[in-house]
């Protein structure tokens, strides 16, 4: 009973984990990234289309990352180079991603709801560990494994390396970073692009796990990932904790469906939890001080 539950929590959390990790890298550098939602969508679409035509899910994964990078690049150009409002840019990108994928879905597959079935990534069957709960699940799926490695690696990168130090400095006090010869522009671009590439892995998971792209399949996960990131106080490990919490709530919701409680209420569980956690438990979380503020180098 508990093992299948945990296994399901993990699988549901994968897109959250990638998107929240991605979001952390963008925001730590000082750029709010609600475009996560759009990145999930474009990368899922790229994964499905590429896999459909090449029959190679690995190429699909690569295409997803490319799409994620391009979408993030758009956000970076708007926010960093043109110093436009980061929320507005994010919303615009999300609307654009929704419209563009809908349009291309129709153009390429002639459907307004979903793509044909595509192959998924292979499952690895390792002798000996396959039966172990949680660990077995992780070692079976390439993307789950990547998520499990990515979180601690991201944490290490952010808190133990010169790059992480510079990234966080650009989110806290860009003038200081600049005065020490750190290029705020370059570091912020890097953070946003990492955000795009990592989030795209979550998008690829969505499409390849379901073996198709369905219209609007990101379904608000980018926003939930942002909430998880805030709950986790902008640290990769904390954000992962938040993702698993929301993943658990969603799993519970799925399992409770069909019971005595009306489904509409049950479907609200993850969102209610998000709000309760954001408002209550965490208190005033310590956001990077200059997140959301474009950096204007004085000239």
């Amino acid at each position: 009973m508990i093992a299948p539950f945990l296994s399901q929590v993990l699988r549901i959390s994968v897109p959250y984990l990638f998107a929240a990790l991605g979001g952390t890298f963008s925001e730590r550098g000082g750029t709010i990234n609600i475009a996560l939602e759009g990145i999930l969508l474009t990368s899922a679409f790229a994964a499905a289309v590429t896999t459909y035509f090449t029959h190679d899910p690995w190429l699909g994964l690569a295409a997803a990352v490319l799409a994620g990078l391009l979408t993030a690049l758009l956000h970076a150009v708007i926010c960093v180079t043109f110093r436009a409002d980061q929320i507005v840019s994010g919303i615009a990108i999300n609307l654009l991603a929704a419209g563009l994928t809908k349009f291309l879905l129709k153009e390429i597959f002639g459907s307004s709801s979903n793509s044909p079935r595509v192959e998924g990534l292979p499952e690895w069957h390792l002798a000996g560990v396959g039966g172990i709960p949680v660990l077995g699940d992780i070692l079976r799926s390439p993307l789950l494994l990547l998520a499990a490695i990515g979180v601690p690696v991201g944490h290490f990168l952010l808190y133990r390396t010169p790059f992480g130090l510079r990234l966080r400095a650009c989110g806290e006090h860009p003038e200081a970073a600049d005065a020490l010869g750190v290029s705020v522009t370059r570091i912020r671009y890097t953070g946003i692009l990492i955000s795009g590439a990592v989030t795209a892995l979550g998008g690829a998971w969505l499409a390849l796990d379901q073996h198709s792209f369905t219209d609007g399949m990101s379904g608000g996960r980018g926003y939930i990932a942002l909430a998880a990131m805030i709950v986790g106080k902008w640290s990769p490990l904390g954000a992962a904790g938040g993702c698993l919490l929301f993943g658990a709530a969603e799993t519970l919701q799925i399992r409770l469906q069909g019971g005595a409680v009306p489904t509409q209420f049950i479907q609200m569980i993850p969102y209610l939890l998000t709000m309760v956690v954001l408002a209550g438990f965490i208190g005033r979380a310590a956001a990077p001080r200059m997140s959301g503020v474009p950096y204007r180098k004085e000239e």
Partner: protein
Amino acid sequence: MSSPAVELLDIHKSFSRVKANDGVNLAVARGEIHALVGENGAGKSTLMKILYGLYAPDRGEIRIDGKPARFRGPADALRAGLGMVHQHFMLVRPFTVVENMLLGREGVPPVLPMDRVAASREIRDLSGRYALDVEPGAVVEDLPVGVQQRAEILRVLLHGASILIFDEPTAVLTPQEATDFFRVLGGLRDQGKTILLITHKLDEVMQVADRVTVMRAGRVVGERAVRDTSPAELARLMVGRDVALGRVEGEAPAGAPVLEVRSLGVRDSRRIARVNSVSFQVRAGEIVGIAGVEGNGQTELVEAIAGLREVEAGTIHMDGRDVTGSRVAQRQRSGLVHVPEDRQRRGLVLEMSLAENLLLGRQRESEFSGRVLLRAEPILRMARRLSEEFDVRPRDVSLKTRDFSGGNQQKIVVARELGRAPRLIVASQPTRGVDIGAIEFIHARLREARDQGVAVLLVSADLREVMSLSDRILVMYGGRVVGEVPGRDAREDRLGTLMLGGAA
């Protein structure tokens, strides 16, 4: 003769509407402490930012040790051996001292782990050598300002700087911290470092500098060896006239109490008790000064009186009415004005224009606001009048306050507050960062207000300021008022003892 460590030749720099540097020449010899003084907006900070590669000059040349240098950014300047300690600190506050030191260090692989242990050792070595005591593992925002500054100096030294630029380093220091700082400066010079020091305090120039350059309106108007000059001559060069900062007694005896504080208790944002059963009165027509080392409860006391911080115990009365729980706007309607100690945090909205900032707090007055819309003409007229009167430069009411020099930002806050016919003035560090001409003016305005029967509460880290203005001086220590001295016969040493918790 060897070439100077730093040479600036015919430097020009204009911002959209202002010529900040207009053909500046400056030479600084190696191993010299060179002071740079001048009025607010004279272009001192701009010149130093050009030297440090933060601004590109429109024209002109920089030479380091006789060799022409082109800095495309601070990174280039760092490599050439320059380091700058800024007017507003450039430390990342949630980072530890070590992390701040490691930031911007070049030639390390970006994604391999940093060696914090080695860095901490390096910091300890260096802090031993220059007597700059800093704990490497401490988080910056938990450190007192003086220690933060030491961390900044250390970082500059750690990057191998041999030419150090300081922009108003003592503006935020307590007198004790300033004394320590000057000792450090002397030590740096003795080790062969070249030092450029911007300051408004002429006695500091006389005390530590070897040479001094005076700037005015973007140009150099004089250069002297410190032993050949006097504060009076420097003041004359700066402002173009004689400046007097002496004591002037009030004209009339004080009247009825305007502000009355009874057994006040206040906690800071971390819930630590900062003010403990403080009681005093400020009467109409008197200036009461509060002296004390910063951090002894003055900030919280002032915030409580201004209505910005909750009162834990006791009461505050204005003109006999209890205002302990009143909102800021109510207190302001009863005639309270407040010059906050941190102009950038509490005093200004940096992204708004000069005119808008001068309007803040008065936007509902019928003079400036119709039923729905603000009235542009009266607002502009008021802004022009106030910036004229308080000599805010440049005289451009549509310029964002961010683009004014530090001292002019201060004048804007003072102009707004003193410009509204108050009954009670609560002024915290009212002349921080302003030039001596402006200090003289602000002091005159405070005295004038007193002579017209306004009650003035003055809090200042500058003991001289407290002594030259106050009719009575209260000394705060450890959140309590530990002594009261009539301003007329206050002596620096006696106040100093009280400020450190000793008996008078």
